């Protein structure tokens, strides 16, 4: 708040935030899986305007992903079952990361493993690079082993995160799945294991049915639900994780406007990610930092960081 609470212009509002010891230009990151590795949008947008970019989920070996159809539309949302199609961490480090490092923004490597050993190995490889932080994806619902099956169990989260912590000094963000009875239990496990931040939420497991063929729309039968439909669930989980741990939080799930982004910050997020909305409105993530600053300024606040955790529950 500036002294007399009078309105400020968006330019007068400081957008910088920190997530643990990671400094970001602004709280808006492109989420994993909905921004590729940045190359497709680089011709059209200045990527240095972002707070950061989370890579598509990387695996130790290249993955072809699931057979199509991989996407289905739902009310105010979509299902995806991409199944982590990616060129593998080796190709990423050699062929993709160098270009990403030229974008002048934080680069967060999202990694997904079949096993603890996979995660540890990838963390080791990526720690030797110039990436800003690691995002352990313990939450992808579209693969048969690893990932979400690890993230659903606090003990396994504890073990995997602790093992990764042991081999890296890079900031370690842990991305959690909402498909759990208690998000706080999983969040506390990640905290105990030495995570630097929590990222929540990944997609909710869902299904779409084709009435004519009497088959699931997705070849994978089930997929991950994302988009505005899940925003209320995501806000609640960010709120609970913020209340029940001391970790900084990166919030996402259905963010489609500056107001949405600030609501996540109020609930406890230090920064936010934009996922599915980028598929529909590729401009959005670039417009958000200024739009958030405009709202903050109109309310007389001279920085965005003040929003984090400011929600006053009844």
């Amino acid at each position, binding site marked *: 708040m500036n002294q007399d609470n009078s309105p400020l212009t968006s330019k007068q509002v400081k957008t910088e935030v920190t997530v643990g010891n990671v400094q970001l230009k602004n709280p808006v990151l492109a989420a994993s*899986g*909905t*921004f*590729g590795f940045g190359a*497709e*949008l680089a*011709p*059209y*947008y*200045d990527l240095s*305007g972002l707070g950061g970019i989370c890579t*598509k989920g990387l695996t130790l070996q290249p993955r*072809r*992903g699931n*057979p*199509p*159809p*991989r*996407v*289905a*539309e*739902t*009310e*105010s*949302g*979509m299902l*995806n079952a*991409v199944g982590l*199609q990616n060129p593998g961490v080796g190709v990423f480090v050699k062929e993709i990361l160098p270009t990403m490092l030229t974008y002048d923004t934080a680069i967060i490597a999202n990694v997904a493993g079949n096993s603890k050993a996979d995660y540890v190995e990838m963390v080791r490889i990526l720690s030797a690079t110039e990436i800003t932080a690691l995002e352990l994806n313990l939450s992808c619902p579209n693969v048969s082993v690893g990932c979400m099956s690890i993230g659903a169990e606090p003990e396994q989260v504890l073990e995997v995160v602790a093992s990764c912590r042991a081999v890296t000094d890079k900031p370690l963000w842990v991305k959690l799945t909402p498909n759990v009875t208690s998000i706080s239990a999983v969040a506390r496990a990640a905290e105990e294991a030495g995570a630097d931040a929590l990222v929540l939420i990944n997609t909710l497991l869902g299904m779409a049915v084709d009435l004519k063929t009497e088959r699931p729309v997705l*070849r994978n039968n089930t997929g991950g639900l994302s*988009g*505005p439909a899940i925003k209320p669930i995501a806000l609640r989980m960010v709120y609970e994780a913020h209340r029940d741990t001391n970790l900084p939080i990166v919030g996402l799930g259905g963010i489609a406007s500056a107001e949405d982004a600030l609501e996540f910050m109020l609930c406890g997020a230090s920064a936010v990610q934009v996922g*599915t909305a*980028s*598929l*529909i*409105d*590729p*401009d959005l993530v*670039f*417009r958000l930092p200024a739009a958030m600053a405009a709202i903050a300024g109109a309310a007389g606040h001279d920085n965005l960081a003040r929003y984090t955790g400011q929600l006053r529950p009844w």
Partner: protein
Amino acid sequence: MCQDNKPSLRHQGSLLGNERLSDSTHLLTIKAPELAYAARPGQFVQIKTSRYLRRPIGLMSVDREQGLIQLGIRRVGPGSNELCDLAPGIAVDLVGPLGTGFNLGLFGEGACETGPAHLVTVGGGTGLFPLLYLLEEAAGQGIPTTAIAGFRSPAEAILQERMRATAKRCIFASDTGGLDFTGHAGEALTSVLDTWHLRPEQILICACGPAGLLENIALQCLERKIPCQVSLEARMACGIGVCVGCSIPVYCHNGGAETAESETTYERCCYDGPVFPAARIVWPSRGGIW
């Protein structure tokens, strides 16, 4: 939103006209100069409706001077219905132009030396729309063209006049008879190729339409060694290449016929396609699914 002289991806178009082509098909004319300027045949746009995801629609015609694009839309569900019912004057939220389109430079090796190269378009249903743009482009480049268009029945035939005005030769096929050729578009193509004097490398076949038709055409062309490009449709989310949601199974190496999984991979219909060399596609008869 144009940043630092970068081209725009999102455009606010303005609907100038909405013409009914048939019971189930409308033709939209939209002013969107920057998009029109950048567009190439075979590319598409993603249009916003009240549904959550955008709808991919191929470019049917482009007038760069006037800054206009035309889209042909068939009613098949809520999104396309909404588009067919749009009132002129309204703003249209577009992302594009998107994808890798047709490549008129890709005739067979040595085609130019051996005689005038000839473009044959084959299509049916909404597949005619992108082919019209391609025919117009070829006409502009002085490439002689044959347009083969299939319809279920003469009553469903659309765009006939416009195709006749554009292509050097037109063959309209109908399953039920009553047009130039009785049978489907693939059979019409066979009859054309069977009686033609041109050598394979002088011909380029570009096809768009139902997957079954495309496979039929692709296999004929492979057999006859005629270069063939097909424009495919897949369920899309982003349309801009970032979500990897619209995979098409392709052979890792051009022209492969292997079925081993290790020899095939997925490419994005929206970014690597929608137009692919027909020989690269793992067609359903070889186990491909999309």
